[in-house]
């Protein structure tokens, strides 16, 4: 396991990409602040309220999911439970096989949960044509890339790169004008929406009280994917549930404000089920796949609070490490501060021991989080867990340092020997010195001065 892989990756990121990510992130931070200030007289109180509702949800997750299942079934939504990725992919494939033959089109709206379980790969292997329809995700798909941000997937790309990709795919004459590129994508994807048998989406919020699935978006591809085809499959992590519809105005405002700086997304889609007998369009079947994939384990452990996350991406936008290294550095479907906790929490610290170290613990993420997730605390706990399990070999011998710090005498002796440290080779010293000059003792020595006073 490559130890500081985030650091390694960061060194290879072109300056152009860092600039794109940084500029976009800074703009998003500003728009989040002004959106939330406009939305709430007391932003902090709104966040506390949302944190409380999410904590309550997690405390009662089992019974809320049972209630959701019941209400969804009454609405005509078929509910499936998947304990892990394998199970989820099997269930979804079965639904697809019953609805469409290999070669037919499945349109996809953006869903991090489906990326997490690598659904596309699974469906494509079984012969289906899977088409991502969110513009950013479509670009990611045709480039055989992965999203570098959970809300704005191609924040690491510029228009030239998109133009080249579209030309390569034969979408139209070469153009770098964003609106023209978007229209080429629209034209190409329209045919897919029209002919798709199946549409797959994620879930922003599932409402236990009413058995409704809530999807938010700006482009219209999510509505099209979940309305035009005969079958709609929605995939949700178990924690994406809210107790009641009365909670929605608060959460919609916080999610949208934090994610894109808008008051509300262009479309808020409240799905009550398949088309009813008096309706002339809409899917004939709606399926909800409830996905665990490690979340119940997280719920019962010290990182439980990360499950409050509503996937707004605000923590990514504000994180100095994310801005410098970009999303792909985390080598996980979830990146930034969210990923640094959720990744090892879901998969085990054994698989991802060093992600939690890729942080200065500045706390900007916690400050930005609409549901007040204590990310820095959990990063520290992850580091502790990794050390206790012997997964992190620190080059600095902290035990020696600390033993030295348990005696005033030993400590004062150590200080006297500090000037000789400049002669010692050590990876930590080299790590510092690679980019910075070493600190030097400046001015008077405090202890000597203090002693001289008395």
């Amino acid at each position, binding site marked *: 396991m490559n130890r500081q892989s985030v650091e390694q990756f960061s060194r290879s990121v072109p300056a152009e990409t860092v600039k794109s990510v940084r500029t976009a992130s800074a703009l998003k931070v500003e728009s989040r602040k002004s959106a939330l200030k406009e939305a709430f*007289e007391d932003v902090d109180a709104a966040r506390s*309220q949302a944190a409380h*509702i999410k904590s309550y949800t997690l*405390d*009662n*997750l*089992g*019974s809320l*999911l*049972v209630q959701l299942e019941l209400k969804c079934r009454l609405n005509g939504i078929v509910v499936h*439970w*998947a304990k892990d990725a394998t199970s989820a992919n099997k269930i979804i494939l079965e639904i697809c096989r019953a609805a469409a033959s290999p070669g037919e089109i499945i349109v996809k709206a953006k869903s991090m949960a489906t990326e997490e379980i690598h659904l596309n790969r699974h469906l494509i292997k079984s012969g289906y044509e899977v088409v991502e*329809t*969110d*513009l*950013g995700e479509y670009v990611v798909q045709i480039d055989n890339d992965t999203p570098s941000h959970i809300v*704005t*997937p*191609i924040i690491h*790309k*510029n*228009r030239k790169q998109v133009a080249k990709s579209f030309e390569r795919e034969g979408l139209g004459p070469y153009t770098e004008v*964003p*609106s023209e590129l*978007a229209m080429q*994508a*629209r034209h190409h994807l*329209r045919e897919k929406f029209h002919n798709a048998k199946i549409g797959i989406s994620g879930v922003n919020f599932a409402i236990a009280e*009413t058995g409704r699935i809530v999807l938010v978006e*700006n*482009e*219209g*591809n999510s*509505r*099209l994917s979940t*309305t*035009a085809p005969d079958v709609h499959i929605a995939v949700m992590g*178990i924690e994406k549930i809210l107790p009641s*519809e*009365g*909670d*929605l*105005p608060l959460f919609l405002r916080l999610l949208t404000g934090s994610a894109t700086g808008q*008051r*509300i997304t*262009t*479309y*808020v*889609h*409240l*799905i*009550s*089920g398949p*088309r009813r007998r*008096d*309706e002339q369009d*809409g899917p004939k079947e709606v399926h909800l796949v409830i996905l*665990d994939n490690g979340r*119940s384990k997280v719920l*019962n452990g010290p990182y439980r609070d990360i499950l409050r996350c509503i996937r707004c991406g605000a923590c990514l936008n504000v994180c100095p490490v994310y801005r410098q290294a970009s999303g792909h550095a985390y080598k996980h479907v979830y990146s930034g501060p969210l990923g640094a906790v959720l990744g090892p929490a879901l998969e085990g610290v054994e698989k991802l021991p060093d992600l939690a170290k890729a942080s200065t613990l500045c706390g900007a993420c916690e400050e930005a989080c609409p549901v007040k997730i204590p990310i820095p605390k959990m990063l520290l706990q992850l580091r502790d867990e990794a050390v206790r399990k012997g997964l992190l070999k620190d080059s600095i011998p902290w035990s020696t340092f600390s033993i030295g710090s348990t005696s005033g005498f030993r400590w004062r002796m150590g200080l006297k020997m500090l000037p000789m440290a400049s002669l010692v080779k050590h990876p930590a010293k080299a790590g510092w010195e690679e980019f910075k000059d070493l600190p030097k003792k400046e001015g008077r020595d405090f202890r000597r001065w203090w002693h001289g006073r008395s």
Partner: protein
Amino acid sequence: MADREEILAALGSKGNRTRTPVAIPPLPQLSNEALWSLFRQRLEELGGRIATLSELEAILARPFVMDVESALRLGRIHDGTPIWDAEVGVTTADLAIAETGSIVFATGLGRPRMASLTPTLHVAIIPKDRIVATVAEAFARMSDRTTVIITGPSRTADIEGILVRGVHGPGDVVVIPV
């Protein structure tokens, strides 16, 4: 053990069932006129616009689809354009939300979902008394059918953060209060 049972067992069933209800901010007392004024401002900020019924004739020269309530109100018959060929979709809204410039549509008899989605121009007719101030108020009156809250034209900023309208949904949204 089936996945469902395994997941529920892992989640356990103990949980404190009390919670504080969401504090609803006090409702602004605005006149109908003031609400429509705010609505207009918000809608126009997003690139949508307000129009009058008289402008509709010209718009309907293009291939259109219409929901039944609109057809009855306008005294027109749906002209049989297949939904994917329609350039204009005319639907009557259940609600308008002033604070965001949104319009709300529930599905139902004679109310095709796609009419407000596939055409490039969406015309939303709405009786003037069907406006509320806030999203919270709208939720208090929400239909239990599949519903969409539409706020302005479809948009994306995926390419370099540059705003583009009309990506998959309608690029033009016209609201006609009646």
